[in-house]
């Protein structure tokens, strides 16, 4: 396996690399049962989180992962930094380059920004979500979570529900699950379905058709109201009735024994109800726990300074 510097998306990973990250996440997860959850793997290394978009969960998950590997974790506070004063991304990166950090974990609202940063630093860049493009660690943790539940992912079916157009989670998670042999379908309001999606992904416009496809997993996306500057649906109530996991639909998926996933944070009453949150086959909390293990595995795998 060629050493890799950056994790920018799923598309550029080899099967071997995906396997490596998923396989090593298991032993890292086993550490969490111990009283001392820390290993010295990244002792003396520094991990910097550069979040241009607000995020509590992903950022904390990375910080916990890096701490458990004994790295020094530095948060680059955008709100109070020169970025607010108009400094360009690349000027910021040049500054960070002088600080000789080893890993930069970046989230940005513009797709491709982590790629741009990666081209301009020796540090390993981990994409923690860029625009609508990619969220590779989410995809890896989703794959890891499903592998804990399915003996063989091949042929299993996952239905991804919600705002596909603006979702980096849909793009990355659908890609990795297809790479692992799963069948993927999208269920989305017509106004939030991208114009051209890979033809291997089935497309549905309502729950009845989507459930008739017989999914094994229902993966709800967050309704990203903050990413919308156009009206894509008339109201949250109408979205909920037509595309949300209503109580009635919870009963259907319970009856069928489907797994339920969500990348968080959830909008209760929009894409999911209280009853959905309490559904016994929900994997939402496991996704969070596995996120730390997978991110530890990613940090362990990447090699700062490696070519490309």
């Amino acid at each position, binding site marked *: 396996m060629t050493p890799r510097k950056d994790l920018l998306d799923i598309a550029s990973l080899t099967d071997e690399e995906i396997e490596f990250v998923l396989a090593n996440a298991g032993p890292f997860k086993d550490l969490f049962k111990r009283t001392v959850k820390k290993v010295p793997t990244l002792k003396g290394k520094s991990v910097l989180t550069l979040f241009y978009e607000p995020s509590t969960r992903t950022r904390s998950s990375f910080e916990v992962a890096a701490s458990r590997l004994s790295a020094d974790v530095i948060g680059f506070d955008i709100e109070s930094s020169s970025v607010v004063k108009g400094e360009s991304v690349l000027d910021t990166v040049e500054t960070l380059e002088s600080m000789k950090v080893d890993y930069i974990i970046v989230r940005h609202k513009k797709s*491709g920004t982590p*790629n*741009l940063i990666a081209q301009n630093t020796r540090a390993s860049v981990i994409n923690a979500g860029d*625009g609508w493009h990619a969220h590779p660690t989410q995809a890896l943790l989703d794959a890891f979570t499903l592998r804990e539940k399915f003996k063989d992912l091949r042929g299993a079916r996952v239905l991804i529900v919600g705002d596909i157009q603006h979702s980096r989670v849909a793009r990355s998670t659908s890609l990795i699950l297809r790479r692992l042999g799963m069948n993927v379908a999208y269920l989305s309001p017509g106004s939030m379905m991208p*114009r*051209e999606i890979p033809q291997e992904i089935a497309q549905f416009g309502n729950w009845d058709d989507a459930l008739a496809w017989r999914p094994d997993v229902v993966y709800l996306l967050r309704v990203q109201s903050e990413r919308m500057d156009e009206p894509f649906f008339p109201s949250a109530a109408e979205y909920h009735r037509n595309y949300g996991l209503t109580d009635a639909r919870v009963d259907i998926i319970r009856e069928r024994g489907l797994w339920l996933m969500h990348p968080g944070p959830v909008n209760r009453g929009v894409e999911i109800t209280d009853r959905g949150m309490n559904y016994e086959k929900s994997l939402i909390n496991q996704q969070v726990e596995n996120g730390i293990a997978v991110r530890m595995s990613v940090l362990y795998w990447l090699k700062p300074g490696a070519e490309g």
Partner: protein
Amino acid sequence: MGASRRMKRLYHQAQIASEDSSQLQLGDVLVEGDRIIGVAPTISGVSDCEVIDCQGRILMPAMFDIHVHAREPGHEDKENIGSCAEAAINGGVTGFVMMANTSPTIDNAGVVRTVLESARRARIGSSIYVAGAITKGRKGEELAGIAGMKSAGAVMLSDNGHAVDNPQVLRRAMEYAKHFDMPIASHCEIKDLSGKGCMHEGKVSYALGLPGMPSISEEIGISRDVRLAEYTGVHLNIQHVTTAEGMSTIKRAKDRGIRVTCEITPQHLIFNQEHIGNYDTNYKMNPPLRTAEDNAALLNGLKDGWFDVIVTDHSPHTPFEKNQDFASAPFGITGLETALPSLFHHFVSKGILDWGLIVKRYSAEPRRMMKLAPVPVKEGGLAEFIVFNPERSMTFTQDFMKSKSINTPFIDQTLKGMVERVIYRGEELLVR
């Protein structure tokens, strides 16, 4: 200078291209002063004459580009008229029309005069022309000083870079401009449909997670403007057509006798959405690179004569501006220095396009559209031609470029063919 200008030059045994023929004609071309004084299979016995061996070379009328952003005044960090002229010469182009999206906007006679005065200092100064804006500040609200700009020397009207969104404003502009006998050049785009799009809406915009500009945004814009042209009777020139459907609309309009012409760029023939790869902003332009199917359809359209002119839409931007995330980087690429070699490399050298078509679409027709005389290689004609060597090749390094900017997909690419000589009104402006 007098002595060298008076001395005759014999371009010996060149393959001469003309818009009237797909075949090249082997012959000698004799130049004295600013004129071609002889064209014949062989010319001998000329005294006091420099002989230039042109064996294996193409000798063709120099190019003329009606869609160029020279960035002066206001954006001289990207380009100025002088550097733009040198870039043009470097690519075998000896005249161009510069667009109005400068700062201040070229929207009144005063700015037209200032720009033309500055242009006169360039080596091809007498062949640099100006397009005035259709509306003040290119805001699409009030008409620009159309009559004044015409009398100051403007040859075309365009709000280039964006459409006149309000169809009533465009209609009035067309009605008004008709009597000043200037084409209206339209950037066709329904802005509300393109939204914040930064590339073609399709499978690549999905994969890269970038907001898309759907083909229908351009196509509906073309349909609208063509109908307005029909209604008002103005000469409408549709800029940089990029979709097969848009081309068909124009074809149908032409068949119905509507006064509409249109442009094609080399980049929209050669590249498509797939070339954007890892967010390469040198492939970001508006209208965007479309699909491989569009490439093929447009190329057929060019062969079949549906495009009147080839243009570059030369749009310089600084490295600082282009070195951003894809959505934030500005639209546009440079083209004057690479257009002809890229057309040769991708199409002429493979027998897909012939030299006659290149001369017609990138030299003769653009001049005619601007009501200028073409510069065919013929006895008594103006000596304004280039010598192109199909055997050499050229690497488009930063050092090679005369433009102030290097935002081109061809940067550091090696293409077959080389512009070896550029002759402008008898003077050799470039020899390599």
